[in-house]
């Protein structure tokens, strides 16, 4: 059974997804609990799998028993194990939080909604573990389709946002598939390990280069890297309040994990800075994305859009981190990616609670919240500290290691970008927080009901998580450096 851990990790959420419509026919209010039970089980298994990779080394799982170049291969190593733990935990907290929101606004659609959520989670699981380029494409499509539907279910403007997301998402998937096609035509294989063996002789081939460029464009759209980020702010700002934390924290990050997998495990660290200098260009794009995202966040009036642009800026920062060219930068980037998933979760938790319980959607309205919501304010402050990068939070250490990596490489542009990005992030959080603390609110509104325990639980977990990330940053970083680092670094 231990050998089958990768498959079981996928099967648990997937089986729940398939069973939920049937459960929903008889007991609609069970769906949430069933989803939670399944996610907790998945989390326990992901910890087991993680432990297994630490003790016994990576699992290469050939689906159907066909050895890798013939069949589809999954790979559970330190990198994907870490990502699995993160995904299952973030998803668990996000689904706990979604409970009351779905119950109040979307109760009659709960069964289908949770089906899509579980499908999304199982597809993300697959995207992290797969070691086959075409399998990755199919998972990308499942993720995207569930994403479109989950955004659109809010109705109204969300539907147009979802339609645009669909158009851009399909363009992204098509570019990715086109890139895979070029690589396939040049090498004849789709398996990542096999490609890694075949590619070294082919760096002169124009088909390989073009294929890589198209794969980067395709995944760039999926992870909202700046010139290609158009779909994200609208989609996440109009998605249902209960669901948007899940979407915002995971979808772009997992696409980024897939890109890192392709860059570092297929091409390898020796190649991507010298023979095929894709990472040099990606680093520049990441730097531009960091600043552009932060500027856009500063100029935005809607709270959720502000936070969405903050996420875009951080995707750029992670890309810049992993493309610095040394292990410190890579470890810092991956650490920041994990922290950012939690930070986005926290920001959208707070924004969702503001919108659904206090009717606050614009930055200017934040003053209404003054002194009424200690829980939420505390969560917002800790998340904001982490977003800006102030110690003892996880965000500080992520930025710190990226900064160290940049200094090691004497890449002073990256240092400047990190500092400027920090200043801009500080600026847009000060703009929100000053409304809450400095400007006196004269408007007294009807006191909203206190937040349900699920929401408080979500915010509390995120707060604790960010502080824990800060306290335990050393072991996590050294873990990434030793176990989750790509071979050859």
């Amino acid at each position, binding site marked *: 059974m231990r050998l089958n851990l990768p498959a079981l990790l996928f099967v648990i959420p997937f089986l729940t997804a398939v069973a939920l419509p049937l459960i929903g026919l008889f007991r609609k209010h069970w769906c949430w609990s069933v989803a939670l039970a399944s996610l907790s089980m998945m989390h326990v298994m992901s910890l087991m799998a993680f432990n297994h990779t630490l003790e016994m080394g990576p699992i290469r799982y050939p689906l159907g028993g066909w050895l890798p170049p013939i069949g589809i291969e999954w790979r559970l190593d330190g990198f994907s194990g870490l990502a699995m733990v993160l995904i299952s935990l973030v998803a668990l907290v996000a689904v706990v939080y979604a409970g009351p929101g779905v119950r109040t606004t979307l109760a009659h659609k709960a069964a289908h909604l949770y089906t899509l959520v579980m499908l999304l989670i199982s597809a993300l699981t697959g995207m992290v573990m797969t070691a086959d380029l075409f399998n990755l494409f*199919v998972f990308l499509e499942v993720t995207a389709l569930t994403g479109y539907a989950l955004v659109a279910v809010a109705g109204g*403007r969300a*539907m*147009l946002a979802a*339609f645009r997301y669909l158009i851009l998402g*399909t363009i992204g998937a*098509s570019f990715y598939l*086109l890139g895979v*096609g070029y690589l*396939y035509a040049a090498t004849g294989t789709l398996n990542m390990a096999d490609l890694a063996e075949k590619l070294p002789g082919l760096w002169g081939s124009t088909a390989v280069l073009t294929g890589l460029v198209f794969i980067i464009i395709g995944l760039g759209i999926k992870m909202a890297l700046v010139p290609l980020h158009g779909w994200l702010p609208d989609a996440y700002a109009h998605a249902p309040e209960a669901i948007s934390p899940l979407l915002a924290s995971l979808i772009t990050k997992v696409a980024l994990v897939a890109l890192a997998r392709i860059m570092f495990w297929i091409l390898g660290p020796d190649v991507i800075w010298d023979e095929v200098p894709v990472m040099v260009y990606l680093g520049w794009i990441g730097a531009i994305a960091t600043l552009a995202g932060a500027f856009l966040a500063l100029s935005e009036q809607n709270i959720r859009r502000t936070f969405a642009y903050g996420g875009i800026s951080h995707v750029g920062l992670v890309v810049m981190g992993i493309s610095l060219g040394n292990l410190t930068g890579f470890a810092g980037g991956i650490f920041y990616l994990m922290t950012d998933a939690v930070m986005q979760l926290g920001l959208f938790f707070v924004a969702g609670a503001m919108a659904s319980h206090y009717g606050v959607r614009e930055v200017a309205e934040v003053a209404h919240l003054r002194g009424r919501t200690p829980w939420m304010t505390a969560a917002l402050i800790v998340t904001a500290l982490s977003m800006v990068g102030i110690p003892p939070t996880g965000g500080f250490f992520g930025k710190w290691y990226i900064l160290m990596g940049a200094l090691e490489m004497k890449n002073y542009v990256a240092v400047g970008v990190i500092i400027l990005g920090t200043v801009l992030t500080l600026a847009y959080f000060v703009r929100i927080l000053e409304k809450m603390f400095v400007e006196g609110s004269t408007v007294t509104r009807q006191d909203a009901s206190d937040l349900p325990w699920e929401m408080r639980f979500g915010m509390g977990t995120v707060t604790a998580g960010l502080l824990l990330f800060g306290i335990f940053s050393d072991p996590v970083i050294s873990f990434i450096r030793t176990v989750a680092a790509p071979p050859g670094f």
Partner: protein
Amino acid sequence: MNWVLETVLRRPNFLAFILLFLFGLHIMVADKHLIRKLIGMYLVQTGLMLFFITQGVKTGSTVPILLTSELPVQPAAYANPIPAALMLTAIVVGVATLGVAFALVISIYRQYQTLEEDELVRKMQ
């Protein structure tokens, strides 16, 4: 520019693929009618399939259905099955995306009575 012509003229399938893909992409982005965007999307997806199938063509081969009377099998006699298998998957994925897109289009139309993007944005203000 000579290499462009040379590369393209030796591969008529590839030329058709590029035209379909870029034309579809262009319609997806530049046309403001939601359904025509989806027609563009359909062209992009089928164009990609054309590209893949072309990789599996072998001159002098037949369809990849084995003649069991002639064992052992000569691989050179049959076309490459992998692109066909991949594109079967891609066709179904494409039609599923279309289905969801139409669901979106219809629910947009039911609420706003228009399918023109700029007009929609205006009505949503």
